[in-house]
């Protein structure tokens, strides 16, 4: 597993897409940060939640760029045949790749900590909220990357994998709003769809500095389910038909 992880990490540091993603993250959050500061100046004390909420939103579109390659390219290039005929569990391959992507995401997340640090230097914001927000974003990242990895396992076309995961993540992000549409049909269904919302578990808790265990469980659970399904998809070639 660590061998696969190491390869994927190295891959990110030589891949132009990974650099573009890093650039986009820092550029977009930088703009948001300064405009947010300007809007608030003299009115409200600055806090980190705007920038963190924004980071979570752009990741809906950038995380798939990090994961689309992972399994789709192996299938297209035929290297999957090598990996699956080595004495390595399918799970180790999938998990190693996931960890590689998550580690790179973690680096991006750490890079955006410059903004909270600037705020601390400038004033006295709620440090507890910032820490909670960062932990929340970290768990959130694991779950969106695992969704992306699943779509990468489903197709050998990277672009298709990327678009499908963006679409899926966008729907999940909005699930709280979508849930309201179900309200007319059944309250339970509406409630259920609402709990699947990616943003719901972030904006009303972690980003406000509130740690609710069920939110952490949601992200970790989503990650685990996605990875398990991905392992099944990869191993499906070996099922007797």
């Amino acid at each position: 597993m660590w061998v696969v992880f190491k390869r994927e990490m190295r891959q990110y540091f030589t891949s132009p897409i990974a650099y573009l993603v890093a650039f986009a993250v820092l550029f977009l959050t930088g703009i948001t940060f300064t405009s947010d500061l300007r809007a608030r100046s003299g009115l409200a004390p600055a806090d980190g939640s705007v920038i963190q909420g924004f980071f979570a939103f752009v990741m809906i579109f950038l995380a798939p760029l990090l994961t689309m390659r992972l399994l789709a390219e192996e299938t297209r290039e035929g290297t999957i045949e090598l990996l699956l005929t080595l004495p390595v569990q399918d799970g180790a391959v999938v998990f190693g790749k996931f960890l590689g992507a998550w580690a790179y995401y973690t680096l991006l997340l750490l890079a955006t900590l410059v903004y909270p640090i600037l705020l601390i230097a400038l004033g006295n914001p709620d440090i507890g909220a910032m820490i909670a927000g960062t932990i929340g974003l970290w768990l959130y990242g694991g779950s969106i990357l695992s969704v992306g990895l699943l779509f990468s396992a489903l197709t050998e076309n990277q672009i298709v994998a990327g678009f499908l995961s963006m679409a899926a993540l966008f729907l999940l992000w909005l699930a709280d709003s979508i849930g309201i549409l179900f309200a007319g049909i059944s309250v339970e269904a509406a409630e259920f769809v609402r709990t699947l919302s990616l943003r719901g578990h972030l904006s009303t808790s972690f980003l406000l500095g509130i740690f609710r265990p069920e939110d952490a469980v949601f992200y970790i659970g989503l990650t685990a389910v996605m990875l398990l399904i991905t392992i099944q998809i990869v191993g499906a070639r070996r099922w007797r038909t």
Partner: protein
Amino acid sequence: MIEVRNLTRRYGQFVAVDDISFQARPGEIVGFLGPNGAGKTTTMRVLTGYIPPTSGTVRIAGVDVMEDSLEARRHTGYLPETVPLYPDMTVREMVNFVADLRGVASRRARVDEALAQVGMTERAGSLIRSLSKGMRQRVGLAQALVHSPPILILDEPTIGLDPHQVIEVRDLVRGLGAADRTVLFSTHILSEAEQVCDRVLIIAGGRIVAEGAPDALRDSLQRGGRVYLRLANAPELKQVRRVLGDVAGVAGVESESGGFVVQMVKGMDARAAVAGEAVRAGWRVLEMRPWGATLEDIFLEFTASSRTIKRRR
């Protein structure tokens, strides 16, 4: 040791491998010979645990590939048909990667040895992207060899190479057959199987249609073929027909470019008798060789006929 028993593999309704059984013993290089679509790759993929059999059993070094796939894979080195390499890695990184995934002890020494075996030591630092096809093939071999596996499965390692590289890779494969190693080597070139292998399995339409040592196989393939005979004191066709027409196994004689073509009865090899009769008749034989069909042609005929038989059933 590879033991395959009643292996069948279907893709949907299509039967790609149809109830084949064979064994390959340690110290043997076994050639897997068949035309495109014969089922060579499919069989090898089942052997290496990449796809499951529809029915039948495969044992690698005594381990059933369905029961304990990981253990079976540990004993096997595999070069797939499309050589699986990461273009962004250097040769050494690539072989290291596989060695690490296999948990090879004393990795550095083993990787060096594998690279030396395939003659890629000097190019160890080159990006795979920049290598020629023949060199990639060698890296693929190094990757398959890095854990000194007792069983080596090579899927058409010479395909797409220039004649010079083909010879190099053939020599390499021949050198890989060590005392206790089993090598299974697929190809669709008969002469290649003959040069490299101790034993050849001919597969066509998913079935093994012939099996044996290359020499024996060559004989059996030529049985029922035609022989060109050239004589110094050229007799008349009538006379030749009279002498050879009575030999058991001869179907007919025609004159052809200064000599004669003797047609054998299907399934019989009358070459020795023909030569004996010719000498007894006092003819001086200048030349006697298979006619028309090269080994390749005969092989094609053979596999094609087995395919039409199958279709008719």
